């Protein structure tokens, strides 16, 4: 058993490295990097600044002091830069119109400015290099800073992770509270009307898109109950009631979406367990139906159900994105969504890694729980 745990833990390392490498590769493939998006409007405002530094460089090469150099020298160097840019674009510098010269000046400044930012952010290196420097930094607990704004990612994640965990746990709780009783009743009354309704509604819960559900809930609340959910998020340790006022509805919607799967599995497991010999023994011993089902049935059916609940964690993570977006909850999923839109590479890789760690370890925990709950299973 210990050997098995150690082997599984060792296997997570290549998995996590692979995930981070893949994320890096994906992000580097994104058309247009963060610099393009960052510099959309600001680059041209800095045109003169950029040109000044390049002119100063050129003057220094000729051994002149940029502060005291003559205007003609500066003009000559600037013209040289513009001419190179014009040649690059395939135009004849001598025949270019003033408008073309101006455009070339803009392009030159724009590209120079972007290159400068790329060097500053380390985006000029190849992605294997970027990936490795990220991995070594992350191993030391430094997740880097966002490309847009330069805010550190670690503290931001520490703010957001508890919110996401709260939403996920509440959703899980709701789904288990809905799914377990209905699943058990549905199995006990197999092929009855209750069973049929429960099974159909379980598929219905799987089928209803959470964004549609949330939209309808918000509309109904505002139109018929004259109520609107809070606009601003309050942290749970600042004011639990205010926090819950916003978060309970998304949690319920999340839970309902999940409960379909759990309910179906509960029913299938209960049906299987109720056919076992020990159930017949319990019945013939004279136990009531209630005791038989609860003490001998449910407890044995729980093993695979626990694992399925654990395997829902990735679904939870994905499902919460839409709800965080609609209800304005500052969770991890939304952070990543914004980062993808902004091509904010360090954030994308950091958050994806957080998710990967959660998923890998929840899978491991599920397997181990399985072994603990069911002594017949032996890992070697």
């Amino acid at each position, binding site marked *: 058993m210990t050997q098995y745990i150690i082997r599984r833990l060792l*296997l997570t390392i*290549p*998995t*996590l490295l*692979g*995930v981070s490498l*893949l*994320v890096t590769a*994906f*992000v580097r*493939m*994104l*058309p*247009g990097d963060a610099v393009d998006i960052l510099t959309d409007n600001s680059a041209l405002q800095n045109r003169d600044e950029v040109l000044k530094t390049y002119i100063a460089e050129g003057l220094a090469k000729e051994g002149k002091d940029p502060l005291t150099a003559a205007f003609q020298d500066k003009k000559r160097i600037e013209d040289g830069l513009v001419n190179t840019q014009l040649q690059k674009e395939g135009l004849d510098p001598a025949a270019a119109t003033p408008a073309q010269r101006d455009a070339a000046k803009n392009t030159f400044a724009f590209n120079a400015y972007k290159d400068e930012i790329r060097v500053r952010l380390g985006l000029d290196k190849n992605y294997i290099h970027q990936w490795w420097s990220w991995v070594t930094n992350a191993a030391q607990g430094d997740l880097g800073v966002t490309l847009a704004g330069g805010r550190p990612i670690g503290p931001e994640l520490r703010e957001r992770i508890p919110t996401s965990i709260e939403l996920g746990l509440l959703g899980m709780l709701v789904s288990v509270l809905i799914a377990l009783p209905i699943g058990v009743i549905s199995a006990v009354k197999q092929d009855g009307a209750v069973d049929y309704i429960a099974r*159909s509604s379980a*598929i*219905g819960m*799987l*089928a*209803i*898109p*959470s*964004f*549609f559900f949330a*939209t*309808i809930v*918000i*509309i109904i609340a*505002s*139109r018929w109950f004259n109520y609107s959910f809070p606009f601003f998020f309050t942290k749970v340790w600042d004011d639990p009631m205010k926090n819950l006022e916003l978060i309970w509805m998304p949690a319920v919607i999340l839970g309902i979406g999940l409960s379909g*799967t759990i309910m*179906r*599995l509960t*029913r*299938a*497991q209960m049906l*299987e367990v109720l056919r076992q010999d020990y159930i017949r023994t319990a019945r013939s011993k004279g136990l009531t139906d209630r005791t038989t089902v609860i003490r001998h049935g449910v407890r044995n059916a729980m093993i695979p159900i626990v694992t399925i609940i654990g395997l829902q964690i*990735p*679904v939870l*993570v*994905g*499902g919460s*994105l*839409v709800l965080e*977006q609609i209800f304005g909850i500052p969770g991890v*999923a939304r952070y*990543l*969504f914004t980062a*993808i*839109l902004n*091509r904010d590479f360090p954030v*994308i890789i950091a*958050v*994806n890694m957080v*998710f*990967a760690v959660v*998923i*890998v370890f929840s899978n491991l925990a599920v397997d181990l729980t399985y072994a603990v709950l069911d002594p017949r299973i032996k890992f070697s």
Partner: protein
Amino acid sequence: MTAAKMESTPQVEQFFRPRAAAPRRITLGVVGFVQRKPLGAFGALMLIGIVVIGVFSPWIARDPLSAQHLSDALQGPSSRYWFGTDENGRDLYSRMVYACQVTALVGIGTVIFVSILSLVVGVSSGYFGGKIDFTIQRLVDIWLSFPAIFLILTLLTVLNVRPGISGFFGLGRGPDWGPQPGGSLWFWHTFPRTTIIILTLGVVLAGGASRVVRASVLATKANPYVEAATVIGATSTRTIMKHIIPNIMPTVIVLASLQLGTAILVEATISFLGQGVTNFPTWGQMLSGQTRTFAENHIYLALFPGTAIFLAVFGFNMLGDALRDVLDPRLRGSR
């Protein structure tokens, strides 16, 4: 050997009874399926309906694709606008009819792609075993360690076409030419624009599916007839094509039908997030952005597309369940 020479037991008679002619057999099968699984039949009907509406959308819709009636904006359902109009005065019914194209293409395309990809991965992992199996399974571990929706969003941003950027190898742009029945874009316009989504969803969904296929291959491989085929010198290719794949086909079909619903639900979600097909109406998109603010006072704007998604996904899940009960009872309870 003929039936007459054998001892006449009911089983033998059953075995040698001539089978009904093909058309009649199919009719009987369909009638039996409808009687035993009415909700599954409803799902099949939804699927056929969406495909037919999608194919004939330019003739079924009442308005051309881009028609606006600004003076009639935000009108409730009426005899002129069956499902009402949105904030730009576009007929919601017509737009939902056009959106069937995207639903049908994404649903069916994804399912086909997932089936092929999971077959390739699952069969090569399960059949060859050993080191190949180990390596592939570790790769699948990585594959499954991404939360699906983010893998989708990241891939879509990588592959998708945005204004001014030509996208991944120019995929997903599609032609802007060709006949336009009823003044509307037809499949040759829609299909290239959905390819990116089909590829993305396919790659993401195939990870889990390949595990199921692998398990099924392992079970089939343990059968004596596979061993027998190997003993008489059949090559791996022949064994896989003649013995393994035909025997795991029921599993693949059931998986595919269950994934049809998932694919459509996920497509609707990414459209809602604004990352799906652009410049063409889709059901998810109709619930997103500006429309949601208008829906507060005009609830039909949300109600019609939302119900359409719900009914489609519900029907396809029911169809998948029914097919599973009929074709592959072993899979019961796997979801």
